[in-house]
């Protein structure tokens, strides 16, 4: 019986506690520690002693205080009411905590994630006599204006329906009764460290559109794919992750603020309710769940936060939704793992991280994917983008390297671009994606046939610029041939007018693929025509002074619906101007 096994504290060191007398306790079982009942989890059992990681501040604990086992693994509550919520790493709702304990977080306070009073209008999708399987859609609740929450039969449960109760109900009210007498409510629990089951995986062949030109065009990832975003401090990881949360094409966003700044999350809380989801017109907050464990909140709960986040994401995926999970930052999670490992006196691997770091990261990223859910109804996907904070911006460190082995794309942020205020500071020479070939068909079919060829041409131009820059560094720009200098100029326009994107500009902040393609077409047209003019003997100076660079650099500010026309007009202007400056 849960709660029957009582132990006592024999050792306390930071967030880890050792207890004795917890007979029969299981690994990863949740325990309540001390007189205040702090939440903890069993992470090692040796002899008669269990080592616990405690999710709250341990100061003040005394040896001999009681420890109670609960018989359950660490689990989250799932059901209507998650969207728009802000929860901590172990899914305590921060709003409700503030209402109970004030402006500062006080330990030992538990509060269920889902509001027990709120009533939801339940519309059944099953009738008495139906045979139900785990994962089936038992009914629906209109959770927000734009999202229907599908009430799923918990995985593993099955039976024939005896009675159905439609209408308003709280998350704990019975909505279905099965013939064997078991009842179902809208609330279910799922252990966070266990992947939620699905019917089968699907090949990732549709893109996860981010609204960022450099990503969607050069380094796209698939819906259900994974990308990592490493970068030193100040390179814009958080701005990029938040921009993705705002503009990425997804039904639900789960944003995990893992060991990062409080003011940043306040920023999200201030902005998301105001900003509109570009796809539905509803406030962004209504499609978002925030899991927040800032750097000054307990380290063990930080370790749990990414699992809480991905479990919530999987739950919405199982309703056949496209879900995006952002984790900022996985390095802080790894550090929490390292800190706990060190307290266990485990033999350290590289840089003090435990030897199982790569395994855990692998298991985490593998929970992303595009699947047919248990309901067999349509498909759902969880796309994961994880920020990495390498010490000193050095990507050779263990967390970046271990992440690279499992992630499908690398979006590398560099300090050099950030110092130039080139944002997003994604380094096009270092970044890669393994999804490009699989996604090419989609882009050519949905956006334009020239997609792949223009992308190739743009990448070649950037590559050529890099080679030329090395020479410029040695001999100076004046010593370069005009043919080379026009390449440098075209590459500059591509970098500053296309790759750079202003996250704070109303129009430029998000860019659909059609607009990206039109911009690329225009800029590359200039590159080709200007090079041809030089070949025909037109003076470089005249081309540079013709004032074509300004409109090209401002293309991002043109609204998407006017882009096609604006691009065509500019192409004509380029042709006219170049014809005028010379070269027959």
């Amino acid at each position: 019986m849960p709660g029957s096994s009582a132990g006592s504290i024999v050792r306390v060191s930071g967030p880890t506690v050792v207890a004795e007398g917890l007979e029969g306790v299981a690994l990863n079982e949740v325990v309540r520690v001390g007189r205040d009942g702090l939440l903890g989890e069993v992470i090692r059992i040796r002899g008669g002693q269990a080592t616990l990681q405690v999710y709250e501040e341990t100061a003040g604990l005394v040896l001999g205080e009681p420890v109670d086992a609960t018989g359950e693994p660490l689990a989250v509550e799932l059901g209507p009411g998650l969207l728009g919520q802000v929860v901590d790493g172990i899914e305590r709702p921060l709003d409700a905590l503030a209402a109970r304990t004030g402006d500062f977080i006080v330990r030992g306070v538990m509060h269920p994630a889902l509001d027990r009073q709120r009533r939801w209008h339940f519309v059944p999708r099953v009738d008495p006599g139906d045979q139900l399987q785990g994962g089936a859609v038992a009914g629906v609740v209109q959770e927000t204006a734009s999202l229907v929450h599908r009430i799923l039969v918990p995985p593993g449960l099955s039976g024939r329906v005896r009675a159905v109760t439609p209408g308003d109900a709280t998350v704990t009210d019975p909505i279905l009764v099965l013939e064997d007498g078991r009842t179902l409510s809208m609330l279910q629990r799922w252990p966070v460290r266990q992947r939620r089951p699905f019917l089968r995986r699907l090949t990732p062949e549709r893109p996860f559109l981010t609204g960022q030109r450099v990503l969607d065009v050069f380094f796209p990832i698939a819906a259900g794919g994974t990308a990592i975003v490493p970068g030193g401090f100040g390179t814009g990881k958080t701005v990029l992750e938040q921009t993705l949360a705002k503009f990425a094409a997804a039904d639900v966003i789960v944003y995990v603020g893992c060991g990062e700044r409080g003011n940043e999350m306040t920023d999200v809380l201030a902005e998301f309710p105001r900003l509109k989801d570009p796809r539905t017109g509803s406030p962004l907050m209504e499609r978002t769940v925030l899991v927040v464990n800032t750097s000054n909140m307990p380290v063990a709960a930080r370790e749990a936060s990414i699992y809480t986040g991905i479990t919530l994401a999987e739950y919405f995926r199982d309703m056949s939704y496209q879900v995006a999970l952002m984790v900022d930052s996985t390095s802080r999670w790894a550090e929490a793992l390292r800190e706990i490992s060190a307290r266990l006196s485990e033999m350290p691997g590289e840089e003090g991280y435990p030897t199982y770091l790569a395994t855990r990261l692998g298991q985490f990223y593998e929970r992303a994917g595009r699947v047919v859910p248990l309901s067999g109804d349509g498909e759902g996907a969880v796309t994961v983008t994880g920020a990495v904070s390498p010490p000193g911006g050095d990507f050779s460190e263990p967390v970046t390297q271990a992440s690279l082995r499992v992630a499908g794309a690398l979006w590398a942020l560099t300090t050099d671009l950030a110092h130039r205020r080139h944002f997003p500071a994604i380094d096009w020479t270092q970044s890669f994606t393994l999804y490009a070939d699989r996604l090419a068909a989609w882009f050519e079919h949905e956006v334009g046939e020239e997609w792949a060829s223009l992308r190739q041409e743009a990448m070649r131009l950037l590559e050529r610029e890099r080679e030329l820059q090395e020479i410029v560094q040695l001999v100076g720009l004046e010593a370069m041939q005009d043919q080379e200098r026009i390449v440098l100029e075209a590459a500059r326009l591509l970098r500053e007018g296309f790759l750079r994107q202003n996250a704070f500009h109303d129009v430029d902040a998000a860019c659909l693929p059609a607009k990206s393609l039109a911009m690329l077409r225009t800029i590359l047209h200039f590159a080709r025509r200007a090079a041809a003019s030089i070949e025909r003997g037109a003076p470089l100076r005249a081309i540079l002074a013709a004032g074509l660079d300004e409109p090209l650099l401002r293309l991002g500010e043109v609204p998407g619906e006017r882009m096609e026309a604006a691009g065509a007009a500019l192409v004509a202007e380029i042709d006219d101007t170049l014809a005028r400056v010379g070269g027959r």
Partner: protein
Amino acid sequence: MDLVTRLARSATAIAGPLLFVEGVRSARLGEMVWIRLDAGESRRGQVIELSETHAVIQVLEETRGIRPARAEVAFTGRMATLPVARQMLGRTFNGTGEPLDGLPPVVPEAVLPIAGSAINIVRRERPSEFIETGVSAIDGLNTLVRGQKLPIFSGAGLPAHALAAQIVREARVRTGEPFAVVFAAIGIPFREADYYLHAFEGSGAQERTVVFLNLADDPTIERLMTPRCALTTAEFLAFTHGMHVLVVLTDMTNYCEALREVALAREEIPGRRGYPGYMYTDLASLYERAGKIRGRAGSVTQLPILSMPDDDITHPIPDLTGYITEGQIVLSRALEQKRLFPPIDVLPSLSRLMNLGIGGERTREDHRAVADQLYAFYARGRDVRRMAAIVGEAGLGDDERALLAFADRFEAEFVGQGDARRSIEETLEVGWRLLGAFPPEALTRIGRALIERYRPQGETDGAGAVDADGAARHPGAPAGGAAGGRAAPEQA
């Protein structure tokens, strides 16, 4: 308060700052203890680990002369706390909060645990109020806002103290709301502490300042308490008395070294350069104590100062700090050698909250665009300077010459303002004057309407006005004709 003090005479070992006491079953993690020596003297400590066999005590004062076998350890049952009061304004305390000025202890309005608690983020208020520091490189390009934590990354011999003192002096709240300064000296030499104290005195800010002093010859482990005492006081003044509090913590490098000393004495597995793996979390427990709370009037703004060992920004101390704080102001030895003050290298400097504090209603509508344009030209100018060092000035084109001249003038006129104060309008005017060297169509980061409204009229303002030769070929050479020579006051 627990009045039952438990005594133990079972100390068995001392190692560095740690005392091991056996068979104490009733100690609390984090509680304060007194260690009484046979000579009658007492020293303070704190319980940092508990196990069946022993309790580990971190001794906050000098460990010299402690004989474990003769020491008597009194467990107070109290966590580390600090009595706080509004009266602390104008007073000076040691690193653990005891008066140093010869005056009696303050009459406490509250006794608060110095460890602090995390602000529930749903109750945090988004920082948005511009603080005018009078320094162009900060106000114009890396704006400080109330509730922000913005460290200064310094190096040995760089004038972080002069810059910090200038900010404290100038960053007054113009609207007449109550403000206070909490100053924590962490392991700095007397000379430097004395400089700050005189600077506060000279600015009339003294009676609004609370000082916590842990000097270079004070106990190392006390340094772990000093910033926490300062922040506890700051939070009390801000959130109970509604004051806008600026907290100066200097030097965080000394704090981190104390942290490392304790960690290694505990035989923990060291992380990078011997610093403990939890240093990020520990630093966050300090830096995150900045901000504003909804519905409360005051704010806590932090200005931590740290020395980058060997000017290395990738060293764990600046690196972890930069990951937690909302930007950084980086001082540059190259600019210092050009005798420019303040020697702020704006390229690696950053204020993450800048956009919240600037714009039409707060500073001026062209602020963001001007800052972006200055950054863009300066970054390119620096590239050209690097290139010119290799290929020589003769290999440069006209555009590059213009960028090079701009970089020199930007450093000399915009950044190197000396100790004069500039309003934000003056800062932006200097910016526009420098941008005047380029034709309007080159200002691609600025909207056309803003260019029309703010760009000074007239043709391009002689781009080659500054003799750039020397600076370009020998980056260390002084720039000619600069507006601001080095104006940092010499240290006392």
